[in-house]
């Protein structure tokens, strides 16, 4: 990875972690109330994130290239059963725990130490899925499955 690319990833990752934390969604009750359709915060946040990203990507598409990794290649993958099945399993975890892989980090750093328990489960779940795929002699799922990051990986 080139120096510029490394610093870019560091900056974006830090900003992302910062914003997730100040959103207060590391707190069970906020996401839970959202899923009870009683608090619009999570929907406002998701929708505005998507809208801004959609608009930003329209600009990027016009440029057609990235700063450190060659021509722009956005993901575009067809729908398969695993997206529905995996999404449903993920949704059960999301519903019961009112958290997700990013929010677990935020929960822990803001003092919700049960977040570490969720994290252990998360790593276990990722591993278990890999084990099942290996038993079924499938190629291991290594996201994203589209060739978005090949250029970067080659550096």
């Amino acid at each position, binding site marked *: *990875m080139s120096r*510029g690319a490394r610093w*870019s*990833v560091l900056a*974006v*990752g*830090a900003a*992302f972690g910062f*914003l*997730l*934390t100040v959103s*207060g969604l590391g*707190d*069970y009750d906020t996401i839970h109330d959202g899923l*009870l359709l009683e608090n619009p915060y999570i929907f*406002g*946040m998701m929708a*505005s*994130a*998507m809208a*801004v990203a959609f608009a*930003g*990507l329209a600009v990027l598409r016009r*440029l057609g290239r*990235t*700063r*450190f990794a060659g021509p722009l*290649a956005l993901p575009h*993958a067809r729908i398969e059963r*695993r*997206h*529905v099945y*995996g*999404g*449903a*399993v*993920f*949704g*059960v*975890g*999301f*519903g*019961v*725990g009112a958290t997700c892989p990013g929010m*677990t980090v935020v929960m822990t*750093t803001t*003092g919700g*130490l049960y977040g570490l328990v969720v994290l252990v*489960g998360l*790593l*276990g*779940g*990722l*591993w278990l899925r*890999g084990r099942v795929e290996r038993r079924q002699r499938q190629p291991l*799922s*290594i*996201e994203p499955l589209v060739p978005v*990051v090949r250029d*970067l990986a080659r550096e």
Partner: protein
Amino acid sequence: MRPSSKGFAVLGWIDGQLPWWITGPGVGLCVVALYGLVNARLGVSGAWLATIAPMEGWRPEPWRKTFLLALVGGSIVAALLGPPVVVHGYGRLSELLPPVALIPVLLLVGGALGYGARWAGGCTSGHGMSGCAAGSPDSLVMTATFFTVAVVVTLALNAVTGGAL
């Protein structure tokens, strides 16, 4: 782990929760920036997956671990700038369940998140934000599925517990 009155605030600059119209567009810009700078789809489950890659004998893209470290660092900075950090429980779920029941439940919650994210090829960030913003059909379907299931599960829990959850 009950809420205690004592806290740990280094700076306390950020008071409570910032409004969604700041955090939402902010994370949207993060998604755009990662695509535009390094051609990568921002995703947290992929970053966690990279940490178990050595166990499975494959090499993750080098940016994944950098991203995870930065994510944790950014979150710690925000926690220090924010309201006092108090060791606390798990909201209404820890009021309802004693730790001996809560811990297995949370292990299963994490397990479902990890298993489902890998099966589907992404989570709330990878599919939900980055993939949907790019208009990728798989991401749109995955996101609609998990949000619908999560709402149904939550409403069911609320009904079963007589409104306690």
